[in-house]
């Protein structure tokens, strides 16, 4: 990136269910934690970007944090909300608009699969009435085709979930902190063939905030700066296979994840072989498998052998979703993307505790994907 931007503070509100606290209040908790971690006060923040999908307007948290008059932009970009807030903060800093910026994401969803209003997605009511407006179906449909083309087995889907819950058990901020055995997952109820109950994440609650700073502010405030080496967002190309598609083109095109990934690698000047730890969108276990290839970490089909060998466990060659990912943390839409970056910062600082990647990681990679076909990738370095 042309002008160095660093993450100097991180804060998280535990994920899961917190009945006594609104989503917005969880965002405030995360923001205060990030400010404390950076060793700065709210009045030092000159620009803020934040959002939620179901828990209100992020900018209203200024009444809790302090009415300093700062510009605060609400972000609503589906599962890429957190990544978009981060990109906004990066642009505010790199363009010279501010020296210190906050990115915050939070959410609080009802239990059960997301209710979808087809009209919000440019679709007719028929799409929902006839039972096609479910994100879970898309994941299964894309996965079934992928498994057919590249020889991925049901066992690999189970292995991803086993790893997620094992990692979640090591994460005090995770929602699901109980490891599950292979058979527990392989015999859980089928929801959308080939995906079973414990292979899916669930809508949940949580919040994450990050304090970002330019080089001058890093010098001023000191602290444990992690460099934001790349942040990229891409939407659909004609021919990609995306959620909420009543039809698909005959031709196939790279997914938005592939395009965002390429852009981020180019921006950071590194390749997938340089990445030491990765957080990849795991809305369900098949998504993590497909996203390993879409983000350049393997060829299509190689996941089968990699997962058998444990390559993506914390002790493996490329640890993936070290905090338990969406499977163990649940999916508060506005917060998930920033949770990934929070985890990378812990790993790169060497502060990840029981789930610390053993060989000190120097390059971290995060990726989110959401409806109706948007991906955000960040690359961090120390």
């Amino acid at each position, binding site marked *: 990136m042309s002008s160095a931007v660093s993450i100097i503070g991180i804060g998280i509100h535990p994920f899961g269910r917190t009945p006594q606290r609104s989503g917005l209040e969880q965002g405030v908790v995360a923001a205060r934690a990030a400010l404390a971690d950076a060793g700065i006060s709210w009045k030092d923040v000159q620009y803020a970007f934040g959002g939620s999908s179901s828990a209100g307007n992020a900018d209203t948290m200024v009444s809790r944090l302090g009415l300093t008059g700062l510009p605060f932009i609400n972000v609503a970009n589906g599962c890429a909300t957190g990544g978009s807030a981060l990109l906004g903060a990066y642009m505010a800093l790199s363009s010279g608009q501010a020296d210190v910026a906050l990115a915050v994401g939070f959410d609080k969803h009802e239990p059960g699969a997301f209710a979808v209003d087809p009209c919000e997605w440019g679709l007719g009511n028929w799409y*929902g*009435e006839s*039972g096609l407006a479910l994100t879970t*179906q898309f994941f299964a*449909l*894309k996965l079934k085709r992928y498994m057919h083309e590249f020889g991925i087995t049901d066992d690999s889907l189970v292995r991803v979930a086993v790893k997620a819950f094992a990692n979640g058990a090591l994460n005090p901020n995770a929602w699901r902190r109980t490891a599950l055995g292979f058979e527990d997952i392989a015999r859980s109820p089928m929801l959308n063939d080939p995906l079973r109950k414990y292979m899916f994440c669930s809508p949940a609650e949580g919040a994450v905030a990050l304090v970002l700073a330019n080089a001058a502010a890093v010098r001023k405030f000191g602290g444990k700066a992690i460099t934001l080496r790349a942040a990229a967002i891409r939407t659909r190309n004609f021919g990609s296979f995306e959620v909420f598609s009543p*039809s698909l083109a*005959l031709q196939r095109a790279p997914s938005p994840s592939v395009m965002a990934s390429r852009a981020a690698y180019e921006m950071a000047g590194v390749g997938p072989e340089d990445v030491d730890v990765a957080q990849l969108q795991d809305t369900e276990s098949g998504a993590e498998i497909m996203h390993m290839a879409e983000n350049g970490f393997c060829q299509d089909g190689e996941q089968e052998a990699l997962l058998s060998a444990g390559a993506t466990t914390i002790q493996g060659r490329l640890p993936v979703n070290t905090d338990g990912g969406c499977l163990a943390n649940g999916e508060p839409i506005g917060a998930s993307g920033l949770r990934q970056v929070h985890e990378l910062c812990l790993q790169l600082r060497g502060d990840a505790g029981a789930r610390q990647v053993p060989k000190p990681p120097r390059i971290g990679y995060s990726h989110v994907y959401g409806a109706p076909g948007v991906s955000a990738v960040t690359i961090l370095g120390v």
Partner: protein
Amino acid sequence: MQRSIDTQLFEWPSGDPHLIGSECRSCGVVSFPRQASCPRCSGSDIGLRRLGNVGQLWTWTTQEFAPKSPPYAVTPFTPFQLGYVELPGEVIIESRILGDRAALQIGLAMELTFVPLFTDANGDEVICFAFRPLGKSS
């Protein structure tokens, strides 16, 4: 009375109903449902196109838990199948998929059919398109 779930999607009533999509006169891309501009070339010279009735199963899955209502309109819930069917030379259509689950596999020959899906507040039977394995008309 019977009515179509959406009059833009297919001919109904008709002795030989087809799905109706749109076709870009500039680049030839076929879309479903019909749309007024082309998702590939952005062109707005668009005509309607009667789509073919047979194709191959491109991918499929099952729906084994009840979708939230609304928007889902079919009660009581019973599990169903859905997938994408490739209409050769045209477009790949998302649809309910009928037929024996054990026989479903990618590449299976499929044909268009129409099914009553639910009864609306006016007491009308709402008809939706679906695909079933070719030649299995039961």
